[in-house]
């Protein structure tokens, strides 16, 4: 019990003093997950909109696959990408394995289905009368789509925040494709796994607390966004 308390105390000390290495690990985590999220949003939002506004053959099957991919096991994604990016794999010539780019690709794969699927769900749940009202006021099809997306904005933002929560906390995929190389591809979650293995609980706990803080901030943001959306949806004449 005393060792846990001691580890906590030293973890708080580490956070308070925030040495250069710790800061570098935190910043790299945010950079990798942030970049993956931006790229996933750039692809996922149009994909969600396309699925929300257009009908095409096998759309139902595509949606089922997309929804299933929301729960992709990170280690499976990591393993698949490892095989693709390793020297003997089809994209081995790009030499991306054990780089930040590989970690961004892995997290992009994990975030994309969440952003796309939740964007689609938000768009199709917009009351059809919004589309009709927009049409009666003389909007073009493109303007109607933009209006519907605007009405779905809180749901879409929730999806983006949820995707960030998923990627910032995952360890399996980036551990496999990033290699957890000190000073190069070591991020918060992989450091926690490594330091726990080494019995260096102070650093693991310090990073765990920071990660918890980030998760808490994400959840607070999600709560605020959902509350604003609900306040809007409470009255829908």
């Amino acid at each position, binding site marked *: 019990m005393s060792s846990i308390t001691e580890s906590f105390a030293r973890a708080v000390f580490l956070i308070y003093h925030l040495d250069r290495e710790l800061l570098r690990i935190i910043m790299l985590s945010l950079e990798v997950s942030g970049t993956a999220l931006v790229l996933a949003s750039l692809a996922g939002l149009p994909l969600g909109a396309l699925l929300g506004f257009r009908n095409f053959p096998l759309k139902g099957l595509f949606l089922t696959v997309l929804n299933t991919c929301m729960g992709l096991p990170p280690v499976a994604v990591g393993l698949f990408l490892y095989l693709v990016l390793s020297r003997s794999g089809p994209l081995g010539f790009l030499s991306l394995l054990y780089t930040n780019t590989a970690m961004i690709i892995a997290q992009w794969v994990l975030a994309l289905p969440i952003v796309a699927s939740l964007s689609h769900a938000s768009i199709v749940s917009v009351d059809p009368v919004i589309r009709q*009202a927009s049409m009666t006021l003389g*909007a073009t099809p493109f303007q109607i789509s933009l209006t519907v997306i605007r009405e779905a904005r809180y749901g879409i933002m929730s999806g983006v925040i949820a995707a960030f929560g998923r990627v910032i906390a995952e360890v399996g995929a980036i551990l496999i494709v990033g290699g957890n190389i000190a000073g190069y591809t070591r991020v918060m979650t992989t450091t926690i796994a490594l330091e726990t293995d080494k019995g260096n609980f102070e650093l693991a706990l310090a990073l765990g607390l920071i990660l918890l803080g980030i998760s808490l901030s994400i959840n607070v943001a999600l709560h605020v966004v959902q509350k604003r959306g609900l306040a809007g949806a409470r009255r829908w004449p």
Partner: protein
Amino acid sequence: MALRLTASHITKGYDGNPVLRDCTFSFAAHGVYVLTGANGCGKSTFLRICALIEAPESGDIDFFSVGAPLPKDLALRRRITLVLPRVGVFNTTVFGNVSYGLRIRGIGGSRARKKVSDALEFAGLTHKKDQNALTLSSGETQRLGIARALVIEPEILFLDEPTASVDQKNTEIIEEIILNMKRDRMTTVVITTHDREQAKRLSDFPLIMDGGKISAV
């Protein structure tokens, strides 16, 4: 030149049940047309078809300005508008809702602000302009729908059951707005209602829908 509307031999049904049967009518003169009829007789369907929101199974909707019928394109759709019974409020301020029609037409700045202010004043909503429109009462929401339609100065305005779910006070305000439009005689207004007394108060041209057809009372 004023816009005129002719509905010719309109047929429409849902799930095999015919609602409009060979329905023909011409809205040739300026004024307020009030269409009454029992619930489910097809009044709203007729209005939606006239407002080019829904297509008929057969028959034609034609708008004329001079000579030949106008093509049913965006330019024509922007000369008419329909206020739905459930208005379809956008999750933004009252001002943002009313200015929508102007924004999508590329009208902004002081000209847009003036038009929106005038429409809000006409609908008695000036004091609510900065409020989120989703927090308005049912009656205020209907008035918002009318203000949102009026700001784009439609040549033909369709109002589908504008007082169906509002209290007496708001019904009176909405009727006053319609009577003001009637006095201005700038817009052809087509209203549906199941309230025959209201139809008498508002109409220049009382109409009735029965058996899927329209006839003058």
